């Protein structure tokens, strides 16, 4: 019994920390609709700045002149200012860009911050001082159990912050405006409120909360370079389970997740990796808008921002250009060296992977944060066949899309019932579940040591032949996707995206069409995965992990989600850029981050979107 009470208290303490991070994220999302991937970086910066402010301004490990609490608060404010800088310099310019596009920008910030933090604070983990007055453990009254003082303080802090935020939102004019903007941005703007100042203010608030959460970890945990990504996924889970934009929901969800962790390790010590994602999946399936979220007001058809460019058959010039590019791609392998051939095959794989995701994100109007699941399932299907049944490569390549497609049918059935970020997070949950199966089912999948020796058959072992094979399958898959987009199926999909009620009124079965699109995209991602597995000779759980999903997302966004062939260019640009930078410099993360930020600022419609704009401007000039 005592153990259970203590474990419950541990859960409460973790929940409070989690709530602080998640509250900032949910406030920012509520108003600006920005999926702020850099929130974890702000949290990490809070911890690092807190460490510096608390320890550095005095010698010998004693707290500096600011004292512990002064240092923590100052760190939170400093992070708030960094948040303001990110908003003013970067995100402010992107509010009119497609939904999720700012995600790309914030991902660039994550990379930049990772490299800068390493440069500024060094590689070694830092251990902060303990909080004065809250050392050690205390005997709990009545229960007679010992429990750390600082954890008790955190348990109390969560509700206090929730209360303060509640007061801010309910009792001040600023809070009133934020709530109004959460309900209807346009209307608030029309009433003469300065939206820019409001957004900046909200971002400041969110960043302060992230910084505070980070700095408050000092007495509990070490400060290290992995904090950002460790916290961001969990914070997203809390925000989504709670209901986007809902503070109370975030608090409830943080409690749920915190307690789950605490008790989960007593019952299932080996599945802590995936427990939160299982719970998120269950919550989202049962309550599609989280615990406390409300269904968004239906967007009236024809509302500004809702209309996307109509997809027409490509102009003749573009077709000729595409044909020329394809001819060039076919010719290339005959002149490339061995390494260039393997990169060529990689690029072909990424193009297909990005195009398959684009079917969902572009014409489908659904976001997926877990597309790597199907890539990885395809790769594992091929590898398992090769490893356990010694199947030839042709069998692997034929069956991998089938396996991934079946997984797409299974997961998609749930995902297409949700909308927006909820659907995206459900795909993430399924991807994490698939990942943990690959990671933990050691007897079959080899766990994190993976499956080795998945090399192509003898006839395709020559790099040149394999490159052509990859090109052929990638081009075939891409053409299939393009065909689907221009077929009645694609029209139905786009009709659902642009106006679900109208599409339903003319008899398009919304769920079925989306479901099939999901499975189709999954199958082709699986094909890409199988090719990738044979190209590398081995598969590992990293193929299904979050970074791989993020890569696909970045490629699509970079290329232009509202174009048809954008992902091809996005895949080539992103993969090419990272391949070159990693070879050229140790600081590739900084440079890649800066490049992403620059691309986002200069091409807010993506590369292909910018090209199209340029083309259309030229055309209309010519006509005049």
């Amino acid at each position, binding site marked *: 019994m005592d*153990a259970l009470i*203590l*474990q419950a208290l*541990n859960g409460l*303490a*973790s929940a409070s920390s989690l709530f602080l991070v998640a509250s900032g994220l949910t406030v920012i999302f509520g108003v600006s609709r920005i999926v702020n991937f850099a929130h974890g970086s702000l949290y990490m910066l809070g911890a690092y700045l807190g460490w510096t402010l608390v320890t550095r301004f005095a010698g010998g*490990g004693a707290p500096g002149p600011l004292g512990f609490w002064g240092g923590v608060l100052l760190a939170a404010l400093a992070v708030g200012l960094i948040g303001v800088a990110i908003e003013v310099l970067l995100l402010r310019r992107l509010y009119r860009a497609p939904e999720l596009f700012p995600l790309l920008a914030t991902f660039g910030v994550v990379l930049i911050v*990772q*490299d800068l933090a*390493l*440069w*500024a604070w*060094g*590689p*070694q*983990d*830092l*251990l902060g001082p303990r909080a004065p007055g809250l050392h050690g*453990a205390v005997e709990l009254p009545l229960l007679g159990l*010992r429990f*750390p003082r*600082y954890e008790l303080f955190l348990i109390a802090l969560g509700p206090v912050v929730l209360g303060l935020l509640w007061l801010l939102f309910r009792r001040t004019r600023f809070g009133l405006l934020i709530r109004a903007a959460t309900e209807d941005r346009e209307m608030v703007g029309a009433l003469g409120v300065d939206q820019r100042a409001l957004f900046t203010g909200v971002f400041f608030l969110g960043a302060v909360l992230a910084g505070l959460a980070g700095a408050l970890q000092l007495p*509990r*945990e*070490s400060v*290290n370079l*992995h904090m950002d990504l*460790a916290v961001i996924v969990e914070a997203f889970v809390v925000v989504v389970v709670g209901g986007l934009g809902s503070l109370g929901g975030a608090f409830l969800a943080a409690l749920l997740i915190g307690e789950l*962790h*605490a008790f989960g*390790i007593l019952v299932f*010590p080996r599945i*802590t*990796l995936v427990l939160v994602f299982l719970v998120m999946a269950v919550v989202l399936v049962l309550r599609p808008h989280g615990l406390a979220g409300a269904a968004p007001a239906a967007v009236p058809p024809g509302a500004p921002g809702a209309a996307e460019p109509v997809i027409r058959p490509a102009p003749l010039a573009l077709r000729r250009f595409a044909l020329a590019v394809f001819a060039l791609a076919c010719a290339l392998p005959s002149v490339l*060296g*061995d*390494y260039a051939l*393997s*990169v060529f095959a*990689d690029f072909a794989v990424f193009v297909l992977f990005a195009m398959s995701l684009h079917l969902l994100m572009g014409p489908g109007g659904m976001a997926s944060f877990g597309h790597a699941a199907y890539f990885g399932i395809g790769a594992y299907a091929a590898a398992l066949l090769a490893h356990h049944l010694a199947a030839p490569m042709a069998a692997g390549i034929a069956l991998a899309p089938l396996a991934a497609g079946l997984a797409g049918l299974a997961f998609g059935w749930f995902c297409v019932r949700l909308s927006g970020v909820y659907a995206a997070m459900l795909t993430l949950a399924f991807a994490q579940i698939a990942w943990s199966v690959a990671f*933990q089912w*050691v007897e079959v999948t080899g*766990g*994190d*040591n*993976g499956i*080795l*020796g998945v*090399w192509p058959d003898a006839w395709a072992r020559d790099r040149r032949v394999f490159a052509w094979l990859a090109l052929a399958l990638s081009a075939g898959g891409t053409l299939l996707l393009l065909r689907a987009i221009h077929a009645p199926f694609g029209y139905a999909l786009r009709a659902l995206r642009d106006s679900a009620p109208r599409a339903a009124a003319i008899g398009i079965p919304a769920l079925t069409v989306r479901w099939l699109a999901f499975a189709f995209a999954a199958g082709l991602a699986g094909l890409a995965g199988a090719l*990738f597995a044979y190209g*590398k*000779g*081995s598969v*590992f759980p*990293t193929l299904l992990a979050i970074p791989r999903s993020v890569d696909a997302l970045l490629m699509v966004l970079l290329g232009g989600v509202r174009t048809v062939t954008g992902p091809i260019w996005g895949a080539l640009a992103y993969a090419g850029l990272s391949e070159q930078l*990693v*070879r050229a410099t*140790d600081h*590739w*993360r900084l440079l890649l981050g800066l490049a992403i930020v620059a691309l986002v600022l200069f091409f807010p419609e993506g590369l292909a979107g910018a090209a199209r704009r340029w083309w259309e401007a030229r055309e209309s000039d010519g006509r005049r």
Partner: protein
Amino acid sequence: MDSGLLARRSLLRRSAAAVAVAAAAPLAAPAIARAQAAAGGAAGPIRIGEINSYTAIPAFLQPYRNAWLMAQDEVNAQGGIHGRRLETVFRDDAGRPEDAVRHAGELVNVERVHLLAGAFLSNVGLALSDFANQHRRLFVASEPLTDALVWSRGNRFTFRLRPSTYMQCAMLVEEAAKLPARRWAIVAPNYEYGQSAARWFKELLARARPDVQFVAEQYPALGRIDAGATVQALAGANPEAIFNVTFAQDLTNFVRQGNTRGLFERRHVVSLLTGEPEYLLPLGDEAPEGWIVTGYPYADLDNPRHNAFREAYRRRFNEEPRCGSVVGYDTVTAIATMLRRTGGATGTDAMIEAMRGLRFPTAFGTAEVEFRAIDHQSTLGAFVGKTALRDGRGVMVDWRYADGAKYLPPDEVVRQMRPQSAS
């Protein structure tokens, strides 16, 4: 934190100097050596392709690369390998095995390296080992600890320097078996390294002490330990001793919560790798006392070879060497010794022949290390001792060098584990 910057700056200056020295070396080298090299038709530098997770694990790998460069410069300052300079092309795999394989292809085909080396993560090591096997290249794995690398998935082209998970567990079991404790708990990160460390420890300890029982096992996600809850769960089982496999930030958080909650009071703790300065120093004055650990007592290890190594490292990088530094330094020493043995020949078969049974000195300054012909594992050992606090930071005391050769299974067992094709 300035030290990193300083180290980098002085690194620049030094490497500029090294390049100058190295560039001059062929001129200064004896005419005979030059003639020999020319006769061999390969007067250019010998190139090593090194792949590691630099951005993912900087705490271990920055000191590693520092010492790598230091060893390489020393080799080159002595005239290189039969007049040929040693050169390394470094690549960052960012912790992704598939990226490591891509880099390996680039290093072999574009950079024309003669052999591959590196890897910290076990899965990266295995991916590279399979690449080496497929493309018939020598791969000298420096750090990855997984037993599979030389045993169940071993191959002819792969050699490994560090004492493996099995070896380090065997070293600790020897000490653990002497403890009176019978009720044991285990905490290990939830991936291959943690799981196999836990498995070996249980198996070997049960063999040495049939009376022990394991009352609790915790497998937190790597890098994501929920330290408070984990500590409480262990304490709830009330073990007499704990076997810890967590490291890096998981270890730091585990120790901090364990101290706060008194988990380690009146309990024995046996802990893998915790004596390595990479993991012990960040704990500062909260470093636990009396834990039985494997590690590297960099400050107190006193013998001429190690002192010279430590002094050179301090001078050049303005900080103490870490365990990673020794691994980096020894990998280069091993490769250079092997190349001297081949007479500067860089054919893969010749290099493999020279690696098998190769003996070379370690920066530890302890007995010579051998790359065993039977499984391509080196006999590099580790230090086993206890942790203590000195001047507000953790150190190892009462340590001894555990020679790796003594902590390997009998040859017939090894032969059974290793595939036939690998011999």
